[in-house]
Structure formats: structure tokens, C-alpha cells
């Protein structure tokens, strides 16, 4: 699914990634770990296509519309409601039976009762749940998750655990985390960035 050879990324004079080789197969679950500034988020952005390599080769064998990306930011409009945000993305991703799918995700992540509330009024944890709904909305083949447990309460953690366990066999994952032990049971490969 993802193949990188001698991958390098620089921002100005600062080299973030150097000489990285990577192979992620279909339905693999790659855990990316490393200290702050080691390039985890940069690697994830490269895999989504949001950033371009400075040198080396990177092939991602899936169309843009089949990638689900959970970033640091929830990538939702604060002035729109949870429902309006997901409806916008559902339209752009051409999700079949959009309303039913959105309703199911909002129910599953415990946001149904606040579906008409503006995202700007959400707590950090609720925003993370909404961001997960957005990333999963179009049933992506490749899920790229940056610190997916960030901000989630105990209930949110259980919901995400359940979602990952249901999807682990059918999707490919690249997950950056500071807490690899939590995801150890899902991981089929690890990449430690220095």
C-alpha cells in the first residue's frame, strides 16, 4: 500500500526526515513512534499527499478519496454544527446514503444529542470524536491517524478501541502515537523515528 525509498523531507534548512525506507502492506497496522520533532506528523502528511518529499520516492497505492486522515486539528468549521460539518464532507466525498452514514457515526461516537450544536462549543474530546467521524465517514481503505487518543475521555477511548478492532482486519493503518502500548495489540509493524 505504501512504499518509501530514501525518503527525505526538509523545511528550509531543517531536515525532518532522512533516508527513510518504508513498506506498509494492505491491511497492515503500522505504529509510528518517536519523540517530539522526530517527524511523525511530517511522515503522516507525506503519506496523505498534503506534503511532498524533498528527496526520495514515496508511492501510496490508494486514491486520495480513499484515505482517512485524523490530524492534530479536527479539520472542521467551528461555526458549523457537527451535522453540517459531516454533511459537507459527506457531499465532497460522495458518500452513498450520506445521512444514514452520518447518523450512524454520530450515534456510535456519542455525538447524536449534540448534532445541532456548533463545533466551536465542543470540548477537546468532543472535537476529537467529531474528527474521527469525519475521518471514517467515507469508509477509507487507508487510515492515517495522528495521536488518535488525544483529548478522549475513558468512554471515548473505549469507543475508539472498538472502532479500531472492528476495522483492523479490513483497512490499512498508519498511526502516530506517544502511547504505543495502548495500540500494541493492533500493530503489525512499528517504526521508531529518532
Amino acid at each position, binding site marked *: 500500500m505504501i512504499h518509501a525509498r530514501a525518503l527525505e523531507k526538509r523545511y528550509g534548512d531543517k531536515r525532518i526526515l532522512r533516508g527513510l525506507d518504508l513498506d506498509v502492506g494492505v491491511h497492515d497496522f503500522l505504529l509510528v513512534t518517536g519523540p517530539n520533532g522526530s517527524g511523525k506528523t511530517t511522515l503522516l502528511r507525506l503519506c496523505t499527499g498534503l506534503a*511532498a518529499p524533498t528527496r526520495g520516492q514515496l508511492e501510496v497505492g490508494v486514491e486520495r*478519496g480513499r484515505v482517512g486522515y485524523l490530524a492534530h486539528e479536527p479539520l472542521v*468549521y467551528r461555526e458549523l454544527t457537527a451535522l453540517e460539518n459531516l454533511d459537507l464532507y459527506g457531499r465532497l466525498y460522495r458518500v452513498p446514503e450520506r445521512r444514514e452514514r452520518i447518523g450512524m457515526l454520530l450515534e456510535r461516537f456519542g455525538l447524536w444529542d449534540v448534532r445541532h450544536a456548533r463545533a466551536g462549543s465542543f470540548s477537546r474530546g468532543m472535537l476529537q470524536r467529531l474528527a474521527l467521524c469525519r475521518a471514517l465517514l467515507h469508509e477509507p481503505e487507508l487510515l492515517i491517524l495522528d495521536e488518535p487518543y488525544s483529548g478522549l475521555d475513558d468512554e471515548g477511548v473505549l469507543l475508539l478501541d472498538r472502532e479500531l478492532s472492528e476495522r483492523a482486519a479490513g483497512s490499512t493503518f498508519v498511526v502516530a502515537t506517544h502511547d504505543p502500548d495502548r495500540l500494541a495489540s493492533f500493530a503489525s509493524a512499528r517504526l521508531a523515528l529518532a
Partner: protein
Amino acid sequence: MNYLADVGALARKDLLLELRARDTLPAMLLFVVSTLVVFHFVLPAGSSDLAATGLLWVALLFTALLGLSRAFAAEREQGVIDGLVLAPSDRSAIWLGKALSVLAFLALAEVIALPAYALFFRRVDGSLIGGVVLADLGIAAVGTLLAAMAAASRARELLLPLLFLPLAIPIVIGGVGASVAGEPARYLGLLGLYDALFAIICWASFEYVVTE
């Protein structure tokens, strides 16, 4: 059809955001009206209609600049541009949807500005309105692309006027010419040509502005 549906969804989203936040259109309205009031008192009594028309175009241009500086504010502040760019829709749909919302804000500002101009200075005729409509199309097309470029920069407040004003010179020439010339068709033609040319350039190049 999918492309137009994407454009419609994105433009509708911008109008909804403005309806909720109300942070762009009220500022544009206040700015254009207060600018015309200032110009009314600045121009000496008995000044020519040519001078008044020139000042109208100055007011419209800077009002547009004010609106453009906020065009990608929500996407920039909330990082949403990444989400839009990752969607499978053609990225130019983001530009077109945003340009349509910019156009709507400009038109609404001018619905107030032109009567105010008529009240303070002189009658508004068909060629002036035609010039304003065509100028708005060019401003929305070029301004939206430049606003996206500026939004990606740290010096965005500085960069947008520096990029936009030189490219807006033909719009001002065409707009002023259409407003005051005895034969406005030549200037309206210039504006139409500018709009068509830059709309194609901006449509084709937007993808390279929002990706690395």
C-alpha cells in the same frame, strides 16, 4: 454535475459561515459607506464627476481587499483547508466555491455602496453598473487565488495587497473607463477579456497554490 454540486456545497458553506459569524460583510459595508462619506467631505465643492467616479473605484477596490483578507480565515485558523484538499473533488472547486461567495459579498456591499454614491456624488448609470459587475467577477477570480496564496504565508496581511493591487490595475482602468467614457463598450470589453483570461488561469492554477 458532481463538480457543480461540490462548488455549490462549498459556496453554501461560506455563506452559512458568514451568516453565523458575521465578521466579513458588516465590516465591508461599514468600510465602503464610511469611505464614501469621507470622500464626500474631502472633495471640494464643484469637483468634477470624474474625480468622484475615481474615488468610488478606490472605495470599491479597498472594500474588496478587506473582504478578500478574510476569505480563507476560517480555513486558515481551523486548519480545514487540509480537509478540503484531501477530498476527492477537483481542487479548483474550492476556488470556484470561494470565488462565488466573495462575489456575493462584493455584490451585497455594492447594493449599499452604489446608492450611497448616488446620494453623495452623482447618478449611477448603466455603464457604471456594468463596469462594477464585470470588475467584481475579475476581483473575485484573481482575489480568491491570491487570498489562498497569502493565507499560506506568515506575512499574509502584507502579502495580499502587494499581490492583489498590481493585478487589479487593469480592473481599475476598465472600471473607471466604463464609468466615464462616452463609448464604454471598449472598456467593458477589456474587463470581460480580463475576467475570462484570469478566471481560466486561476481555475487551472489553484491546485498548485493549496498543495506543496
